[in-house]
């Protein structure tokens, strides 16, 4: 028996301990409030769905990672290994290959590098997920298996937090689990099984929707609160967090006409504490994001309205380590990027502009004294 939060990561090279960062961040932000000051850690971390070593109390939440990074990386590394092996073997043996083949092979042989360019480290994940259904399906199966194993545990209240590409993965997985199109999974369907909360951070599920034939429109799927689809709804409450300057969420914004009070659109975030406003930690650091998350697990406003208001107002005026020069450059470039993607809200444009945005954030960070990547009030990490 436990409250469980399944975390689905976003794009980029998510090292094996990514979920540790999420749990640590949630614990760190909860400590800002008196109610949690002297409590033990609210968020405990399990290594995976099979890890049953943790025994959270009713005031604790067990975070279980539903990662798919290993599968993503494996495909990129396969590309690199196969192509590098061929070009090297040809060079060693002095074999002359057609020049077109050589140039294609060399391009793909960069696939395994993780540090040098944002396309290969971040954006390629979106490309693979959207355009390579064989990988899409494998990723979905991996995440579905985690969810199914968690749901098979006795007496659990399960919530989900998806971030960036993880919002699309989480949506698609939940949608296909909940609508009964996959044979053998009927026992996981609503209303008998239902997720307590779905938290979507930097939601891109709409721009990446309908990757496969039979996928549902994100507004029409079962991934919605009860007020929208009653018995067929797969979650009790749906939270959507969007930073207004986050270009990833610009194309096909997630703005459903859901009017029930179990849909919580928190989509006017404006605070810039880090040039990469798309960063997961940057989102979680914001009281407008973490207070609803914390309150939802306790079933009441453990952080009351007055405390929440004060925290949000203080956060808005808190000093940030961003220099004017960098900020000016970043605002100018980000506007251009947002404009570009608004004009062409397509997946290819998203891929291009996403890489540009991450590069702009890096340049702006360097302009402010080359602070280490991720420096900021919230010590954010990767994406």
């Amino acid at each position, binding site marked *: 028996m436990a409250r469980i939060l399944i975390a689905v990561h976003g794009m980029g090279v998510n090292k094996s301990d990514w979920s540790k960062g999420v749990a640590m961040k949630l614990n760190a932000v909860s400590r800002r409030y008196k*109610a949690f000051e002297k409590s033990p850690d609210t968020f405990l971390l399990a290594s995976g769905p099979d890890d049953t070593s943790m025994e959270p109390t009713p005031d604790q939440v067990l975070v279980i990672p539903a990662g798919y990074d290993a599968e993503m990386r494996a495909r990129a590394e*396969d590309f690199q290994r196969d192509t590098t092996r*061929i070009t090297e073997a040809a060079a060693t043996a002095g074999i002359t290959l057609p020049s077109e083949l050589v140039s294609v092979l060399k391009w793909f042989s960069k696939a395994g590098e993780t540090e040098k360019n944002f396309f290969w480290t971040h954006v390629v994940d979106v490309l693979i997920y959207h355009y390579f259904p*064989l990988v*899409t399906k*494998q990723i979905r199966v991996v995440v579905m298996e985690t969810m199914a194993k968690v749901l098979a545990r006795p007496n659990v209240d399960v919530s989900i937090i998806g971030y960036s590409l993880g919002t699309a993965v989480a949506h698609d997985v939940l949608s296909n689990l909940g609508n009964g199109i996959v044979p053998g999974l009927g026992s996981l369907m609503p209303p008998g099984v*239902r997720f307590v909360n779905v938290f979507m951070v930097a939601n891109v599920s709409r721009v990446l929707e309908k990757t496969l034939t039979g*996928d549902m429109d994100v507004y029409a799927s079962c991934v919605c609160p*009860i007020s929208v689809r009653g018995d067929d709804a797969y979650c009790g409450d749906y939270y959507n967090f969007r930073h207004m300057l986050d270009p990833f969420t610009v194309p096909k914004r997630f703005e459903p006409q859901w009017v029930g009070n179990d849909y919580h659109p928190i989509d006017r975030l404006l605070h810039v504490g880090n040039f990469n406003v798309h960063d997961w930690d940057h989102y979680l650091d914001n009281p407008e994001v973490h207070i609803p998350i914390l309150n939802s697990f306790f079933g009441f406003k453990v952080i009351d309205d007055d405390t929440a208001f004060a925290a949000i107002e203080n956060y808005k005026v808190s000093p940030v380590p961003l220099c004017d020069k960098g900020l000016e450059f970043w605002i100018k470039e980000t506007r251009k990027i947002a404009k570009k993607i608004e004009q062409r809200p397509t997946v290819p444009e998203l891929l291009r502009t996403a890489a540009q945005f991450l590069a702009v954030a890096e340049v702006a960070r360097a302009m402010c004294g080359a602070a280490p990547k991720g420096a900021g009030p919230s010590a954010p990490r990767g994406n």
Partner: protein
Amino acid sequence: MLRIRIVTGLCAAILVAGATRDARAQIVHPPTVRDCDFQRLIVPAKADVDTTVWRIFYPANQLTALEPYLQESHWLAALDEVRASLERATVEHVPSSPEANASLARFRIRQDSIRARVVRLLSAPTTTAFASDLGGVRRVGPSMFRAEVRDGKAFLFRGTPDSLVFTDADPQGLRRTICYHAAVERALLDRFTASARTAAAAVLTAKRARWESYFSRGYSQLPWELYLNSRNARDAAKLDPPTTQWIVFHPSVAVQVSGANYRDLARHDAIALEPVGYIWYRNEYRDYFGLSSAVVFTNGVGTGIGPFLHFGRVAKVGYVFPTRRGDVDPARRSGGVLLSVDLYKYLSDRGAQVEGVMKSLRAKLEKP
């Protein structure tokens, strides 16, 4: 004396302040949360439960009492016990009022409905039939009786005509009677459907294993092949890997064994480019068979073309016919056997044996 009083007063103030901070540091749950939050109700030792009056109705205690039924899978008897307990609690703790009676009536309707579905599912002849009864299984899951606790209110059966809402303003007797028994019903249904959920997880575990085999033991795919093969695998409902696979312009490292005659057989490193081919998977994607055409580039014996057979990831064998392409001396151009590097290595490891076989072959062929 005054100093002592001031110090004492300060100490007292500090202690009071500390106590206040401590009090604030505690998470104080509102009554509705304490009474209706399922995760609290099934924890056996709970300090804030009235252990004298409510003890027998407390969900953890009810579940302990029901354990013999559950161990014997007497689901209907267990559900009937819960109903009987509800009626007892109603008599003892719920003063009659139109609102309370209406709420209890709705709760009973839901209990009856669930019981009818459980009866239907229990009549299923096999476990498979039970799990595949979508209309039945999906409507007897634990969430059917989950009390959603949000903003200090508890919601039951939200989104249905039997919806119930409880707040701190509602009578404790009614709130506890309904929430406690909802928690017990939920725990029973959780256990009743546990095997079906475990079976669903097992289905997905098997699928994941197939995908692992497909990518780790299958024929590697370059991006354009992955893209092309993906075109035929777009059905979201079919979550298993495809059983066949196209090979398109697939380069690989190989070894060509060729010579003008058997005496001159020699190894030549080669790159085999397969313009087109097809793979069939078998044995849960642990193995495959395939056929492709191959253009072979070498250094020394020119370029050749020929068929290439695939027997799993390790063994590939084909025959190469020389072409006129390239600037290799026509005298040196030759066809030969094309082997995958792994197969060649396997054979090389038994070099002496192979050499012996080759010698005997040569000897036989050279006999007049």
